[in-house]
Structures are given as structure tokens and as C-alpha cells.
């Protein structure tokens, strides 16, 4: 296991009466790509600001490399930030912006030049040294900001929604580049975003946040396949969420029928929510389908048709299908037991993990 570099111990942040962070605990390991994901106002940027040292935590400890750093000022932390608005100094050109942290440390001129040129080459901006900040595009400014943050060789790089100002195409490009950069340098990245696609594509580990709390921590695949609750399921990707109840272990009832599933460890007849991703539903004939669905709308999305409809008990379903159908038609929807994910109400992440442990252990015994 990699070394823990940053640890939050019960961090609470209050502004007057409003609690922005309600007891945050996590550990950040060295060399991984982390993403804080959540809707705006969930406290993710506040966490970043506490790590960087721009704001203090009201309560709790921030540990860096095993030492408490609550009172260490921002300029003494081995952490650098790429700001949402880049915050490049408009009175300095590209070279001087990147050289800024080196000039502060009185690094010899020759060394500065080598380091700055290296940093600019790393973000593919060689030859832009003499440009003014106002003369380069948003995407290029973004790269300068990254070069400036990395030239100090920080242990951790914080990125505060750095791609939000870029257009779709550039964004996708930068996602690849950032991920590649992180893997090449082996520096810990902590990336803040409200874009779930971005989070899924880039991260080793995602913290899903809402209203000042971390709801779920895990790899992109874990979080996508096994969301802990309604919020996470809804926020990450698209989902069909319907109410049902557990009949027994590995047996769940919803939409007026009973189905096999792969979830267990709940009380008998416990009310639950069932998640099935739109891409896991296949359109078939009514006879072969597990559910009978009346098609309400159909949209062509290029790669697939997006079909919405309702079943006999009134649940809405969204299906992504490569085959088209007709509005008003009755079709069958087919899915496998593994496609069903069952969520309990108000289950904490600890309990969720513990429950998974019990029966996933059994799985491997069988």
C-alpha cells in the first residue's frame, strides 16, 4: 500500500451558522489521482482550500506526511494549486509566470531558465515564453497554470475545476493529458469537479460529496456499479431507480414481480431502491422480456437510441438501445441478475462496505 500523504481527521468548517463541511475524514495516498465530485456548494472546493491553506478548518486536524499542518501558512506547504480562473499574473509574461515560484526561492538564473523551459515543454508550450498572458488562448493559459504549479515540484497538485472554462473538445483532450501527466510524474493529483464523466474518466479514486459530507469513496467502477444511495446513483451516470423490497437474500421484488439479484444481507421484506443502468436494459419481445414496457419517447443519440417508457405499475424506465422501436409500442426489457443493484435507505458507507464483505466472501466460497 502506498504511503498516506494527506489525512483529514474530522474536519468541520463553519461560516457563521452554516456548516460547509460536516466532519470529513479521508486519507490521500501518494501518487494517485483523486477526484472530489459533487454538485456546486457541496464543500469540495472548501476541502481544496483547506489543503492549500487558504482557509482554516473550524475543527479537526489536517495531516500532511504525518505532521499536523493546520497552522502552516499556504506558502510553506508542499502543495500547489491550479485555479479555476488560472490566476495567471497579467503583468508577467508566460516565462515570468512560470518562473515566479523559482524567483521567490532565489534559484540561480540559469537553473530557472532550464526548469521553466522544461515545464513549458511538458505542457507542450515550447516557444510561448515571451507571450503575454492576454495574447494566449484559454487552453494555453490553462497549460501555463499547470506548468507554473508543477515547476515547484510539489508533492500534491490541487486542481480546482480547471477544465470548466474550456470547450467540449479541448476539455476531452485535457482530460487525457492531465491523466497522462499525472501518471508520468507520479505526483498526487486532487481534482475538483462537478462533472461526473470527467471524474469517471480520470480518477483512481473518487470521493462523491453532497451537502458537506463524503457519501461514497471508491474507484470509478465501484462507484458506478455499486452506488451507495439514491443521490450517488442519480449523480453518477444515468440510472433507473425504482422502489421495491427484499424478498430474501438474492431475491428482490419490484414493478410487481420478483427477480434474482446478487445483493444480500438485508432484512426480509425490507423496503429498498433498485438501480438498473439504461445501458444494461435490452429491448426484446414482450414474451422474452422481464418487464413489459410501453414506449413513450425515442431519441436518436448517434451511438444509441434513448427510449423512455413505463411499465405496468407506472415506473418510468430509460433504456439505451442500439435497435430502434416505435413510440406507443409494447416491448420487453431484459436484464441479468448482475445488472440489478439494490440500495438500502440511509445506509452509511461503513455499513455498506461491511455488508458487501459478508456475502461477497460467501460468493468466493461457493
Amino acid at each position, binding site marked *: 500500500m502506498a504511503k498516506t500523504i494527506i489525512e483529514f481527521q474530522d474536519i468541520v468548517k463553519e461560516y457563521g451558522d452554516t456548516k460547509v463541511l460536516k466532519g470529513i475524514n479521508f486519507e490521500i495516498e501518494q501518487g494517485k489521482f483523486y477526484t472530489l465530485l459533487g454538485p456546486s456548494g457541496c464543500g469540495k472546493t472548501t476541502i481544496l482550500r483547506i489543503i492549500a*491553506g487558504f482557509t482554516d478548518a473550524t475543527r479537526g486536524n489536517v495531516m500532511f506526511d504525518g505532521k499536523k499542518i493546520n497552522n502552516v501558512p499556504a506558502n*510553506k506547504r508542499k502543495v500547489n494549486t491550479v485555479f479555476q*480562473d488560472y490566476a495567471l499574473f497579467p503583468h508577467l509574461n508566460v516565462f515570468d509566470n512560470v518562473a515566479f*515560484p523559482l524567483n521567490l526561492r532565489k534559484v540561480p*538564473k540559469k537553473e530557472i531558465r532550464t526548469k521553466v523551459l522544461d515545464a513549458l515543454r511538458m505542457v507542450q508550450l515550447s516557444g510561448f515564453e515571451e507571450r503575454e498572458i492576454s495574447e494566449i488562448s484559454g487552453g494555453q493559459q490553462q497549460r501555463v497554470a499547470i506548468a507554473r504549479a508543477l515547476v515547484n515540484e510539489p508533492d500534491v497538485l490541487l486542481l480546482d475545476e480547471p477544465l470548466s472554462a474550456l470547450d467540449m473538445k479541448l476539455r476531452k483532450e485535457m482530460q487525457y493529458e492531465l491523466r497522462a501527466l499525472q501518471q508520468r510524474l507520479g505526483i498526487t493529483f486532487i481534482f475538483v469537479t462537478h462533472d461526473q464523466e470527467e471524474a469517471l474518466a480520470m480518477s483512481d479514486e473518487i470521493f462523491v460529496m453532497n451537502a458537506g459530507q463524503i457519501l461514497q469513496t471508491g474507484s470509478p467502477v465501484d462507484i458506478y456499479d455499486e452506488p451507495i444511495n439514491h443521490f450517488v446513483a442519480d449523480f453518477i451516470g444515468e440510472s433507473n431507480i425504482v422502489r421495491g423490497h427484499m424478498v430474501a437474500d438474492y431475491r428482490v421484488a419490484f414493478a410487481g414481480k420478483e427477480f434474482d439479484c446478487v445483493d444480500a444481507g438485508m432484512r426480509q421484506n425490507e423496503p429498498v431502491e433498485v438501480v438498473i443502468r439504461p445501458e444494461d436494459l435490452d429491448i426484446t419481445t414482450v414474451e422474452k422480456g422481464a418487464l413489459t414496457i410501453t414506449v413513450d419517447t425515442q431519441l436518436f443519440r448517434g451511438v444509441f437510441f434513448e427510449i423512455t417508457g413505463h411499465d405496468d405499475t407506472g415506473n418510468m424506465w430509460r433504456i439505451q438501445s442500439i435497435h430502434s422501436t416505435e413510440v406507443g409500442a409494447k416491448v420487453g426489457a431484459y436484464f441479468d441478475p448482475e445488472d440489478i443493484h439494490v440500495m438500502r435507505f440511509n445506509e452509511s458507507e461503513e455499513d455498506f462496505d461491511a455488508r458487501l464483505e459478508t456475502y461477497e466472501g460467501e460468493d468466493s466460497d461457493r
Partner: protein
Amino acid sequence: MKQSKAFYYIPYGLWIGLFVIAPVVLIVYQSFFSVSGHFTLGNYANYFHSGVYLKMTFNSVWYAFLITALTLLISYPTAYLLNQLRHKQLWLLLIILPTWINLLLKTYAFIGLLSRGGSVDNFLSIVGIGPKQLLFTDASFLFVATYIEIPFMILPIYNAIAELSPSYVNASRDLGASSWQTFSRVIFPLTLDGVKSGVQAVFIPSLSLFMITRLIGGNRVITLGTAIEQHFLVTQNWGMGSTIGVVLIVAMLITMLLTGERRKKRRTNHAK
């Protein structure tokens, strides 16, 4: 469409023509005539050869510089502090408020405060320093002039600091700069335009101060403003007065060029 556009130019054109161009042309024209009404370059020769006028010019520039330096010294920290306060608009208003009162009234108020037997003098006696000659000293002149000019320096600096994005400060700290380095390398350079505007707004009027030099400074400090007033009203030498006026206008233009925004592209050479 074209006609209506021309219509809007009328007030501005009249203003510029009557109150800016015509007076300047008249002053330049007047400066080439001697007391007796003959065309001459003598006024300029006189100006540049007589030690009196050059000394006055030096005095004007020197005192304007002192006033500007003092106001800047007080105004920058004040503007910076105002921006950190909770009700900053209110505090700013309190500083602007005195500018709404007539300049002459304020000056007379200072005469009352600083004169023999005035409030300040009495206070000094009470605390045991004893009565002092306060009015008609260089110090009181600088003090009052600085007091009057401060709002004009604070305002542009305040605005420049208010517009400064806090993320620049955060970025600077984040990259390892101490508070002082952040100030000297980021905050000050980025608010320099405000400082320049403030310097313009204070230095240029200070060059031609004359009322305060007389009422508070007791004419101990003779500046170009005083000289112009004397030539027009007392000696009736309009030619010489205009010549000094032209010199002042040139001095203002130079100041504006020095403190104006640089259009030139900065191309620094790094160790290559």
C-alpha cells in the same frame, strides 16, 4: 442618423473649443508679447535665464512631489485597509465626504485651528509643549495640502485594489510567496495603474497651488501658481504670466506621459 450624431457633438465641441482649446491658444499667444505689447521671445528667455523663476519652478515641483509622496504614503495603506473592512463603502464615503465642502471653507477652518490661540495651539500649551508658530510654516502648508489631496489619491487606488481578484493573492501565496513578497510582486504591480491615476490627480493640481501657499503657507513657499496670480493681478505682466502658464501645461503633459499607461510591449531579456 449622421445628423443626429453631429448633434450630440455640439455640447462637447463647444466645451472643448471654448474652455480648453481657446484658452490654451490664448495663453500661448499671450506668452509671446511683452508688457508694452510687442512681439517678443523675451518672456521665455527671461524665464530660463532668471534664477528666480527656475527656483520657483523647482519649488513647485519639489512641493508637489512632497505632497504627492505624503498622500501616497498615507493613501495606499488606507485604501488597502478599507478594502479589508466589512462596510467598506461606508468608510470610503466618510473619506470622500470632505471633498464636498468648499476648498476655501476648509482652508479657513485650518487657519482657525492652526493660528495663535487656535485649538491646536491651545492643546499644545495644555500638554506642556507650549505655544508654537504653526500657521505660515512649510509643515502646515504640506499638512493642509496633503489633507486636501488625500481623497483624490485614495479613490483610484481603492478601486484598483477592489478590482484585484483575490485568486492572484492566493496564487502568489500558494506558489511560496510570503505576505511581503505577495505585496511587492503581485498586489502592488497590479494596482500600479490606480497609483498612477492618483499621482496624476494629486501631482498636477499641486504644481499650481496658490491659495493654500498664501493662506496657510503665508507666501513663504512661492510656487508657479503664486507667480501666475501675481503677474496677472498685481504686475499686470500678462505675457510673463502666460509664459509660466505654458511651462505648467508642458509640465503637466510630461507628468501625464510619465504616469500614463504604457502602450509599448514589454519584452524582457532573460539570461540567455
